[in-house]
């Protein structure tokens, strides 16, 4: 069942507002992840509907963090095991919220799987390789790059080249090596810094659903 496009757009807008109210960093971060993800998705050869779903998955990938106390998200130190357990629930919580919105079931799956790892050691389900939706594999790479190149309360940003080299080190273990390859191609084409940020923010996505 699909809702009227405007209804879905409104729902997505509300969810983005919810994320922003809880943690401002997450919205800016997610918009950058959308831009990178879309560019990688195009190179992977995703269809137009798959790209739209990817965009939404990238935009809402951290939605479940609204259930994680802000003090934990902003903690300027490594998390203790209990806090880490809570943070690691965010893919499941985000998917739970989205599964209740008709038409966003595929997006919910992308969100649930964005912390799975290529070698099967990720969470929440320990999926591996092709079991992980390709959109989730793309979001995982772009999310990691964007996180590494941003200042966080507990560490300074890495330079873009250092972050790209970290992605390569994890290609074939944490990340789908083909997706990392496409990401490097995007970096090559766009250059840096901030190439991704010139792409219109993903909030406009709703208009294209």
């Amino acid at each position, binding site marked *: 069942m699909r809702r009227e496009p405007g209804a879905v757009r409104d729902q997505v807008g509300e969810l983005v507002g919810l994320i922003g109210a809880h943690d401002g960093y997450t919205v800016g971060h997610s918009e950058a992840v959308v831009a990178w993800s879309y560019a990688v998705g195009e190179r992977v050869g995703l269809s137009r509907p798959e790209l739209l779903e990817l965009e939404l998955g990238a935009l809402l990938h951290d939605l479940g963090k609204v259930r994680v106390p802000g003090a934990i998200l902003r903690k300027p130190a490594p998390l203790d095991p209990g806090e880490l357990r809570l943070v690691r629930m965010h893919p499941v919580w985000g998917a739970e919220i989205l599964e209740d919105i008709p038409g966003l079931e595929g997006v919910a799956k992308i969100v649930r799987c964005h912390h799975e790892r290529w070698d099967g050691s990720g969470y929440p389900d320990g999926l591996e390789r092709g079991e992980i939706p390709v959109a989730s594999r793309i979001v995982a790479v772009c999310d990691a790059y964007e996180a590494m190149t941003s200042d966080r309360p507990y560490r300074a940003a890495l*330079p873009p*080249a*250092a972050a*790209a*080299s970290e*992605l*390569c*080190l*994890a*290609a*074939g273990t944490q990340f789908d*090596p083909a997706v*990392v*390859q496409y990401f*490097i191609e995007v*970096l*090559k084409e766009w250059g840096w810094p901030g190439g991704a940020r010139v792409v219109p923010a993903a909030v406009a996505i709703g208009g294209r659903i």
Partner: protein
Amino acid sequence: MSYMLGQRTPSADTRVIEAGGEVDMGAAPELRDAVGRAIEEGVSLLVIDLSDARFIDSTAIGILVSARARLMEQGGRLELVCTEPNLMRIFQVVGIDRNLSIHPSCDAALQAFAGAR
């Protein structure tokens, strides 16, 4: 098989690994083994000769990044031989061109290292 790997030992503390064709996931296990053996044997200079490489993928780049770090830890050096512009651009993107030199030929790499000693 779309890649070629070879290696030689021009001097006791120097290893040259030649990687040609498409240096991708298919080549990665063999390349990782060859690089790992050279590092474990304590070479001072490891040259990866990519003169005949047409393509390099993320897994192979990861091996080079890791090799560079491991060699630096033990006081050794990794040097690359490459003239293919597309590969050179990838090396810039991932920053592997820092802390090592990229030479136009294997002889140039060996001479530069000998001159620096």
